[in-house]
């Protein structure tokens, strides 16, 4: 064990810090859950790409820097400490990108990855259906083969980024009459394709962050299928693993939130009860623990290990930590917690963040599902419904 950063890592941190200091927008962007803000965030994606910071862990042939996981952690620490914007393309960067790298053909990698890295194509995910949320094998949307095309019919819902994004990815039933996880295929589709109707859904905060998608005889080229026909479940499980795992929620983000929370505690110290003070300090400790855990997992992966069902532990922990930190901030703000804009003119980021944090324990497989996975696959308890 060696917890010192190497000179190379320190130099890299300095390089990231300087670039961000020179490029992070001084004005806070409008939320990417609105069209205006989404466009601002896309512009930021392209700014990042101009400095070759869009996909730092990707191989350089696809527009990345080929960095290792420790360097990625350093990048993310600096990114969040600099107050840089949320990533509009996170579905592409953290979910679809790794999926294509693992399961895509060379042609698909060359076609889809570089534009993703350049921020030219923003991706939405289309996993869920009205009857298939955490129970994703209940998917009903169909893709019927017609020559060298699939013809898609059905509905997806709660599709993050789909109100404004360019392309989507999701699972469709390609074998008529198949059940559960069999007969599904993983398809990529242009959200502007004829026959797709998007209906933005107002989320809890009032903005249309995600959308319903209706497919009416939508023609998708067969070459947009990732892996084989009927192999969609296997691919989707890998994607879901990426979603729960290391990449989507880097510790730097939660440490930055914890640091802001500690600052808020100092500002409101005269009002904070001892119990609330301890809550905040404990949450700061948990943000640190999350970082240590991630560094440990990253070091293990770099040495040839893998992350499996532990991703569920990770997902439970960060999502509940994020919610608890924002809840503590709401309590620290007291009566001001209800204001959308604080008396000093700043947006009430804690309120927005609290609302957003409520989605963490729900998406990417609800935490109830993650607890089942933990109990069954890590602890070896019997499956739900089995005696």
């Amino acid at each position, binding site marked *: 064990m060696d917890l010192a950063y*190497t000179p190379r890592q320190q130099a890299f941190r300095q390089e990231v810090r300087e670039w961000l200091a020179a490029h992070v927008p001084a004005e806070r962007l409008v939320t990417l859950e609105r069209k205006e803000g989404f466009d601002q965030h896309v512009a930021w994606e392209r700014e990042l790409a101009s400095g070759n910071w869009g996909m730092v862990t990707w191989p350089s042939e696809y527009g990345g820097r080929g960095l290792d996981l420790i360097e990625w952690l350093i990048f993310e620490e600096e990114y969040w400490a600099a107050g840089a914007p949320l990533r509009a393309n996170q579905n592409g960067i953290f979910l679809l990108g790794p999926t294509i790298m693992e399961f895509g053909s060379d042609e698909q990698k060359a076609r889809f990855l570089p534009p993703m890295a350049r921020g030219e194509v923003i991706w939405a995910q289309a996993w869920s259906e009205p009857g298939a949320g955490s129970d994703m094998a209940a998917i009903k949307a169909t893709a019927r083969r017609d020559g060298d095309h699939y013809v898609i019919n059905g509905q997806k819902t709660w599709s993050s980024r789909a109100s404004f994004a360019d392309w989507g990815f999701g699972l469709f039933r390609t074998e008529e009459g198949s059940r559960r996880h069999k007969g599904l295929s993983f398809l990529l589709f242009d959200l502007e394709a004829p026959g797709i109707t998007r209906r933005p859904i107002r989320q809890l905060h009032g903005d249309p962050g995600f959308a319903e998608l209706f497919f009416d005889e939508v023609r998708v080229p067969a070459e947009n299928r990732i892996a084989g026909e009927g192999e969609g479940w296997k691919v989707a499980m890998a994607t879901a693993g990426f979603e729960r795992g290391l990449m989507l929620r880097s510790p730097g983000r939660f*440490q930055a939130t914890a640091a802001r929370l500690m600052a808020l505690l100092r500002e409101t110290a005269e009002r904070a009860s001892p119990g609330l003070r301890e809550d905040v300090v404990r949450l700061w*400790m948990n943000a*640190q623990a999350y970082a240590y*855990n991630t560094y*440990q997992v990253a070091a293990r992966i770099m040495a040839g290990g893998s992350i499996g069902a532990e991703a569920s532990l990770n997902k439970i922990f960060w999502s509940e930590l994020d919610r608890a930190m924002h809840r503590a901030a709401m309590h620290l703000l007291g009566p001001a917690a209800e204001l959308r804009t604080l008396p000093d003119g700043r947006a009430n980021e804690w309120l927005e963040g609290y609302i957003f944090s409520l989605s963490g324990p729900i998406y990417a497989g609800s935490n109830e599902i993650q607890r089942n996975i933990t109990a069954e696959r890590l602890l070896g*308890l019997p499956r739900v419904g089995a005696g």
Partner: protein
Amino acid sequence: MDFRLPPESVELAEAVREYLAGTHGSDVLRRLDAGGNRDLRIWQGLVEMGLTGLLVPESHGGLGMRLLGGALIARECGRACLAEPLVDTALVAVPWLIARGETGDLAAIAAGEKLVALPHTINPWVADGEGAELASVDPLRNLVAAPEGAGDDPLLLDLGALTSAAQLVGLSEAMLDQAVAYAQVREQFGHAIGGFQAIKHKLADVAVALEFVRPVLWRAAQAMDDGLASAPLHVSHAKYAATDAAYLAAESAIQIHGAMGYTYEVDLHFWMKRTWALSGAWGDRNFHYRRIEDAALGGAHPLGPQHTFA
């Protein structure tokens, strides 16, 4: 930057785990509870594995390991609910004696011939003393009043707190294992209770808590090995978090065992009671919280994502 455990320490800890699993089962705990709290054959086995000399320099007949390796062994002592006084002597006293340059007893300690339990003002009582005067909730822990004028050496405190945290992690892991094993065999309503979500989610919560305590513990041990000024903060973080996780593990385990868990006949109680004893030893939860708060809010420790390993 490489936050992985040293392979040689992991291998030794696994060997200790196997040895204790084979020789220090619940039958031994019950026998020791019924009469006398030592088993010199088990002690001799630990000596032969080199554990009394784990942190003793090779020049004095030991293995010369660092505290990180010691924390891994302390965790195994917790997992086995070990009755032998290995931790206080080999993992607390030895590094403290070395730091003070008092190396005279090290060879005898490494040979398993001398036991040392150092008093500290933070502990009103000393465990494993001669002639138990005080009844602990832990039936295997002989308490005697601390001698007058016990010191308040901060290094000693951190060593005691670190190794207590490590034992709490091992105790928690063992209690989780016992609860999982019980949930797999105990049937109610025609099913193993481990199939019910209420049980699964309770056990998953313990698994989550432990997953995020372990790296804090390794971080604290390494901080002490590296002599960081922030080491006391990391040690307190480990003790505080390990205490909370251990109480969660103990309470979840007894709940899952149901009425069986509330008996002296089921082994779980040994682990629970050790948990309660160690939670209060070497600085209780409140003490360690205060140290963390002072460091974190007082500005002694830089905050934020750029300071993970600062």
